[in-house]
Structure formats: structure tokens, C-alpha cells
């Protein structure tokens, strides 16, 4: 918690009381500080006492005895409250003794100098600490440095006269003055400027950056109000830090002081809003009360209705509130994760610790080179909270990305599934179309050519019987042609039947059709088959080839072999998917086909086996014939 303007005044008032206490007031009037030499090797001398005279108005010349000169210890605080003037001057006379006049002159360094003023050495003008007219510079947090040319100095007693000017409504002060070589003083001054002003400027830029980033995040995600509130807090830190490093206030001094005062309260209110959102809470009445506290207090302050102590109490009220929200933050943080909770605790504790340090610094009775540290806790606190918020942001981004990845994967799976389904659908449609077409052709054959052939066969048979009543059984020539035509048609129909790629069903169908004829021929059929896996190459086309080959083999047995037994075996050799082959053997125990006229039939069988990509082997002895059909099980090649 930075020390605001009001508190500053309050604390400095306390400090003044402390300095005015008897122990500190033991100033030896007229004591002159002596420096034998002023160079880079000699230690700086510090003047802790001065003659002091405060005017009711302004005076650019050193007042004489008419002014109530008094000896005061440095630091000296003074205020023109009672004068009622807008700006007031006071004069200091500081004495010191020089053994010799330093050849390169000397330099003066004052840790604290409020507000502005001029430096005279032995009655000669030497330096001005900022504008003496509106606008007066913002010097409350700035040390001052001035070079004193050698020409202004003299051996023996010297006097520094300091004209100090401040607004009538504020406190002015002068810290102990240090004298030394230019190099030494400049080094001290620059170091202090770096820590006290430059670094604050850098940190102010960083909190502004973080604030803008968080507001940007909030703009993209309006529902996440906590980004908004903390972005505002962060930007407000930057605004407040202006008071620490700006050379001149951007507004009229009094208005600026008021704004700084209100900004402290506003920051507490914004922090409170953020804390509530961070804890996932909405307390409408309390929130309204907080805003009312800010607005009413600011209005009262700017209108000048409130006395100074009331304004200080108004500000101190926000300090109490800040303790509350700090505890809430840490508790919620611990609920989220130990890390988050401890980060918030460390940041908050640091801020409280540094504020405490600054309080001590303000109220301590001695002026040192220490700088106020509270604003250094701002980047830490802002950084921690911003880290938490950004981490959440990043986490939600990551979660979205993971979700997106999962979704993409699922969509991919769905797409693949759809594609599979589509392919299946296309396949099913095709099969359906094929089945429909097959059904249509079958129906045509059944009702058309099939029925007509059947009718013709029955007519021919009847005619044969009537022409030759005594003849036994057997069909005549025409009837045989008709019957064979029907049987061939039957074979085509059978090849179109659904067989589920099962070779045994194909062979079984043929067996079923031939059963009667084999029985009549007195031939026993041995069905020595082994089950085969489904063969995708069993399309109607290849099925018809197999049926024709096997039927031809059976026909040969029936016609020529005089066999009493036919054995059908099946088998599978080779590696699936590569060189796998299915085998069908038809073996009879007849007299063999040597010398019989089966040439054309065999040729047809071989041609058909070739169309299957397979081979037909025939081995015939006097003890029987074996027909071996082998064909690859891979999908039928064109």
C-alpha cells in the first residue's frame, strides 16, 4: 500500500512532532560544520542545523532581522497553513567552514527538498530547484543536487542561503544538507534518483503493460470481469507511480494531490471488486457501499468540505478494507492451489511489509538515504495476480486446444465411420441392385424360357410315350436336348444363388441337383470335403465356371467310366492372401478315360480352369480317374 498524499502529510506531521521532541531539539545553535578540504578523497560534510525564517508571503531576497530568525535542526518541516496565502516562502541560512577553497568548486546534495527553491552561496545565486511560479515541480519524492562554483566559495566561514517555496496548504521540508566534491555528490544523487524515481518509472510502465494486456483479455472475454478489475488496478498503479517520478504534475497541484488521494481509495475499491470476482462472489450492497464511499469521499474532499483529519480517516478506512480483501484473496488462493495461495500471501505480505517500512521511514527521526519501497511491491503484487490470471487464461486456452484436438479426433473418427458406412451403403446398394436384377432375370427365366422349355420337354416326352408306348424310361433325342438345355439353365440359375462365398455350398448345390441321376446310375458319392474359409473370388461368374467344370467331370464319370463310386474332396494349400489355392478333386473308380472320346469336354474344362486363374489336372488309370481343379483364392482376376 503506497503512502498516499494525505497519509504522507499525516505521517510527516507525526515525524515533525518527533523532531520537536526535546531530545531531538537539542540543537547547538550556531554550530558550524568544518571541512578542511573538499575533494574526492575527503568525506562529505553534513549540515544538520540552520537558521530559519518563515514569511507570510513571498520574498525573493534574503529577509533581514525583521523576520523571526531562529535556529532549527535539519530536517525542518514547515507549513504556511496559518498565512492563508496560496504560496509561502521560507529562508534557511546554513553555515560551514572551509580550510581552503576547492579548486573545482563543491556540490550540494539534499536527500529531501519540498517543494521548490533557490540556492545562494555567500549571497550569490547558485541554483534553482525547479520553477518558482506555476506550476511548481513535484519534488516531494526527489532529492536535489546543486553545483557550487569555486568562485562563490571562500576560505574560512561560508554561508548557504536557501529560499524555499511551497503552497500555503501543504507541508514543506528541508533535509540535512550534504556538501562534498562534485563527483562524490553527483554519484550519491544519481544513485538515489535511480532507485527513487527512474526505477519507479520503469515499474510504472510494466504495470501499465500488464494492465492493458488484462483489459485486452477482458475485451475478448467480457464475462470474465476479474480481468477487467485487475487491469484497472494495474493501470491505477501506473497513475499513482507518476506521483513518484513525474517532474511536474499533469494537473494543477492541488487537484493532482486530491486525485492522488482519491486514487488510493479507488485502488482499494477496485482491488475489492477484483477480490470478490476472484472469489466468485457478488455482494451488490457492499459493492454499492464501496463505490459510494469513494464517490462521496472524493466529492467532499474536492469541495473542501472535509477537514484534513477527516480525509486522512477516509483514506485510513480503505487501509482497513485492504486487510479484509487481502485475507480473502489468500484464502481463495489457497483453495485453488497451495502455490497460488502462497504466491498471493507472499505478494500481499511484501506489500504490507514495505508499507510498514515506509511508515517507519516517514516517522523516523533521522533522515537517511533510504528510499520509499512500497511502490516496489506494486509490480510484485500486480505480477503475481497477473501471472495467476494469465495462467488461467493460458490454461483455458490449452483446455480449448485439447478439447479441439479431441473434437477433431472424434470428427475424424466420425468421418471415417461415415465413410465406412457410406462404402457399406454403396456396397449394399450395389448388392441390392444386383440382387434385384438377378431376381428379375430369374423370374424371367422361371416364368418365361424355363417354363417353356419345361413345357416343351413334357410335351415331347408325352409324344414319345404315345408314339412308343412300350419303350422303357429314357428320353428321346429331342427330349434329351431339351432336358440338357434346362439343366444348363439350372446351372446358370444356381451360379446366381447366394452362396456366401462358401465353396462347399457351390459343390453341394451341384450334388443336390445330380443326386437323383447318380442314384439311378448306381453310383455312390463320397463327400470327403473339408470346410474352407469364405472365398471372396466366388462370384457368380467363377461359380458358374466351377459348376461347369465339376458337372463335366461328373458327366464323364456317368457316361464313360462305369464307376460305382465317386469321391469328392476339397482342400486348401499355400498362404492366405498370397499364393493360397483351393483344390477340388473328383475321383472315380471307373475304368479310366484312356481311349474314350472326351477330348472336347476336357478342353472346355481346362479353358474354364484357366479363366479361374487355375489349373486342371487329370490323371487316369485303368483303376479310375482323378480330376483335380486348383485355383487361387484371391479375388478373381478379370
Amino acid at each position: 500500500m503506497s503512502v498516499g498524499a494525505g497519509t504522507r502529510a499525516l505521517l510527516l506531521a507525526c515525524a515533525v512532532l518527533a523532531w520537536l521532541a526535546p531530545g531531538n531539539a537539542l540543537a547547538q545553535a550556531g554550530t558550524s560544520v568544518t571541512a578542511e578540504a573538499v575533494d574526492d578523497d575527503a568525506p562529505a560534510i553534513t549540515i544538520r542545523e540552520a537558521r530559519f525564517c518563515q514569511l507570510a508571503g513571498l520574498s525573493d531576497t534574503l529577509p533581514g532581522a525583521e523576520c523571526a530568525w531562529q535556529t532549527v535542526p535539519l530536517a525542518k518541516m514547515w507549513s504556511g497553513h496559518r498565512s492563508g496565502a496560496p504560496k509561502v516562502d521560507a529562508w534557511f541560512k546554513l553555515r560551514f567552514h572551509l580550510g581552503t577553497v576547492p579548486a573545482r568548486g563543491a556540490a550540494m546534495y539534499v536527500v529531501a527538498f519540498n517543494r521548490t527553491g533557490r540556492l545562494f552561496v555567500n549571497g550569490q545565486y547558485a541554483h534553482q530547484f525547479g520553477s518558482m511560479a506555476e506550476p511548481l515541480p513535484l519534488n516531494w519524492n526527489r532529492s536535489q543536487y546543486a553545483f557550487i562554483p569555486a568562485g562563490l566559495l571562500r576560505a574560512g566561514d561560508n554561508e548557504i542561503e536557501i529560499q524555499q517555496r511551497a503552497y500555503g496548504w501543504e507541508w514543506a521540508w528541508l533535509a540535512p544538507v550534504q556538501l562534498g566534491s562534485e563527483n562524490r555528490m553527483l554519484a550519491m544523487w544519481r544513485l538515489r534518483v535511480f532507485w527513487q524515481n527512474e526505477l519507479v518509472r520503469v515499474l510504472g510502465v510494466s504495470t501499465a503493460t500488464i494492465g492493458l494486456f488484462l483489459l485486452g483479455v477482458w475485451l475478448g472475454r467480457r464475462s470474465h470481469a476479474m480481468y477487467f478489475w485487475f487491469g484497472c488496478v494495474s493501470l491505477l498503479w501506473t497513475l499513482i507511480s507518476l506521483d513518484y517520478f513525474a517532474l511536474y504534475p499533469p494537473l494543477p497541484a492541488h487537484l493532482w494531490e486530491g486525485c492522488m488521494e482519491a486514487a488510493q481509495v479507488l485502488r482499494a475499491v477496485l482491488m475489492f471488486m477484483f477480490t470478490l470476482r476472484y472469489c466468485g462472489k457478488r455482494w451488490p450492497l457492499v459493492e454499492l457501499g464501496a463505490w459510494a464511499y469513494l464517490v462521496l469521499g472524493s466529492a467532499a474532499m474536492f469541495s473542501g468540505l472535509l477537514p484534513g483529519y477527516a480525509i486522512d480517516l477516509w483514506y485510513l478506512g480503505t487501509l482497513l478494507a485492504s486487510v479484509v480483501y487481502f485475507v480473502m484473496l489468500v484464502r481463495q488462493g489457497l483453495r485453488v492451489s497451495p502455490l497460488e495461495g502462497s504466491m498471493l500471501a507472499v505478494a500481499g505480505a511484501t506489500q504490507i511489509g514495505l508499507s510498514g517500512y515506509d511508515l517507519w521511514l516517514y516517522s523516523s527521526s533521522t533522515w537517511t538515504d533510504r528510499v520509499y519501497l512500497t511502490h516496489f511491491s506494486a509490480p510484485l503484487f500486480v505480477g503475481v495476480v497477473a501471472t495467476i490470471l494469465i495462467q488461467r487464461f493460458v490454461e483455458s486456452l490449452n483446455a480449448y486446444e485439447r478439447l479441439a484436438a479431441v473434437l477433431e479426433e472424434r470428427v475424424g473418427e466420425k468421418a471415417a465411420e461415415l465413410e465406412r458406412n457410406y462404402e457399406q451403403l454403396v456396397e449394399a446398394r450395389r448388392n441390392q441392385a444386383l440382387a434385384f436384377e438377378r431376381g428379375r432375370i430369374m423370374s424371367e427365366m422361371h416364368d418365361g424360357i424355363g417354363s417353356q422349355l419345361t413345357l416343351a420337354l413334357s410335351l415331347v416326352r408325352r409324344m414319345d410315350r404315345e408314339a412308343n408306348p412300350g419303350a422303357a424310361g429314357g428320353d428321346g433325342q429331342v427330349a434329351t436336348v431339351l432336358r440338357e438345355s434346362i439343366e444348363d439353365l439350372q446351372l446358370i440359375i444356381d451360379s446366381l444363388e447366394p452362396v456366401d462365398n462358401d465353396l462347399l455350398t457351390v459343390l453341394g448345390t451341384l450334388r443336390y441337383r445330380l443326386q437323383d441321376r447318380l442314384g439311378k446310375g448306381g453310383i455312390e458319392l463320397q463327400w470327403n470335403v473339408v470346410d474352407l474359409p469364405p472365398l471372396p473370388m466366388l462370384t457368380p461368374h467363377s461359380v458358374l465356371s466351377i459348376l461347369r467344370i465339376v458337372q463335366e467331370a461328373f458327366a464323364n464319370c456317368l457316361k464313360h467310366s462305369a464307376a460305382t463310386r465317386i469321391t469328392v474332396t476339397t482342400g486348401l494349400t499355400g498362404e492366405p492372401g498370397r499364393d493360397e489355392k483351393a483344390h477340388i478333386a473328383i475321383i472315380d473308380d471307373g475304368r479310366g478315360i484312356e481311349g474314350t472320346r472326351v477330348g472336347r469336354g476336357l478342353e472346355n474344362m481346362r479353358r474354364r480352369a484357366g479363366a479361374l486363374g487355375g489349373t486342371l489336372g487329370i490323371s487316369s488309370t485303368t483303376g479310375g480317374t482323378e480330376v483335380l481343379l486348383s485355383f487361387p483364392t484371391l479375388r478373381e482376376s478379370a
Partner: protein
Amino acid sequence: MPQALETTRAVPTRILVVDDDDAFRESVRAAIARDDDLVLAAQANSVVAAREAIGRGEFDVALIDLGLPDGNGIDLIREISRTRPDVDVMVVTVFGDEAHVLASIEAGATGYLLKRSLTDTLGTTVRELRAGGSPISPVIARQLLHRFKKDTPQPSQPATVVDDGGLSEREREVLLFIAKGFTVGEIANMLHLSAHTVATHVKHIYRKLAVHSRTEAVFEAGRMGLL
């Protein structure tokens, strides 16, 4: 009816023939006349005439041609199997192809004959049918396996359980063997059953399919809001 042969010898099986082909009816009539076990109960050349004969006639076996000039033989099969469950309906087909045969079985037929060889096989087939055995081809066996597989929930049920719609394990076994080209006799040997029992299994399966198809139709109709 284990002593089917003796029974049928005593009382000839009365046959109803429905076909629009006069020559065919004539050859059937001749075949029946040649067989002592068979007697022609009535013949019809159209659905209308057939209905009349069905309503009037006393018959044990009906031979039905599917393609009639005034309607579909399937309807006749369905009517007969509903009103005369004691009658065996045989569908007469040219090729015994799966589409025609299965549709007929679903309508209630328990056998089928090939038109071209009917005069030779009529007597044997009818006698087998009356004795409880139905003819079946490997393709039809395979299709029956499909029909029942579709409707059986999962193979997790105990093997011996027979539910209304599904097949018993034995029936499934028989169908599988037939689909692989084995004859009823060979299956009987392998399963240590009589050939008659195996043939009876087939007829039972046909009946199941018919019942199943009917309930499915009722179910479908109910689902579509027709009932």
C-alpha cells in the same frame, strides 16, 4: 408317423393340383394315376378355381404353381396353411431357386418340386413329405441359417434352449451340414440319428420359418399402426 408307408398304402394321399398349364396338369394326373398311393382330389387352373377347390375339397397335399393368371400362388399357400394346417403344400418351381422356394416356405409350404422331374419324383417326395420329411437344398439351408441368425439375439444363450423364433442347436447343426453339401443320410450318420429324424428336423424348421414370418408380419403391422 413312423409307419408312414403302411398308412399311406392303406389310404391313398389325396392331391390337389393348381397350375394353369393344361399339359402339365395332364402329366401330373398321369403320374398320380400310375401311383397307387396317390389319388387326384381336384385340379384348378386359376386362383379363383383353386379357392373353390380348397373350400370344397378333401385333400392331403396341394401342389401349387406360383405363376397363376389371376393371382399369386403364394396367397393360396398362405390360405391353405392357415385354414388347413394338416395339409402339406408343395410349391412347383422350374428351378427350385432360393427366392421362390423360401417365399413359399414363409407362406407355409413344406416342400417343393421341380417341374421337369415332377412326374418321376412326385410319388417319392409326397411319401417323404407325408412321413414328415421335407426336401432342402444347400442354398436354402444357408438362407435359412441367415433368416434365423438375424433374429436370434446373441449366441450367449445356452445351446439347448429352443425359443419360439430361433433354431435349436440340433436344427442349426442340420442346416449347416446341408449347406455344406451333405445329404440327409450322411448327416444322420454323423449325428447318430435316423434319416427320418433329420428330414423331420427340416420340416420343423420350415414350419418355424412360416410361424416366424407370420409373427414378424404381425409385429411389423403393429409397428406400422395397422393393427
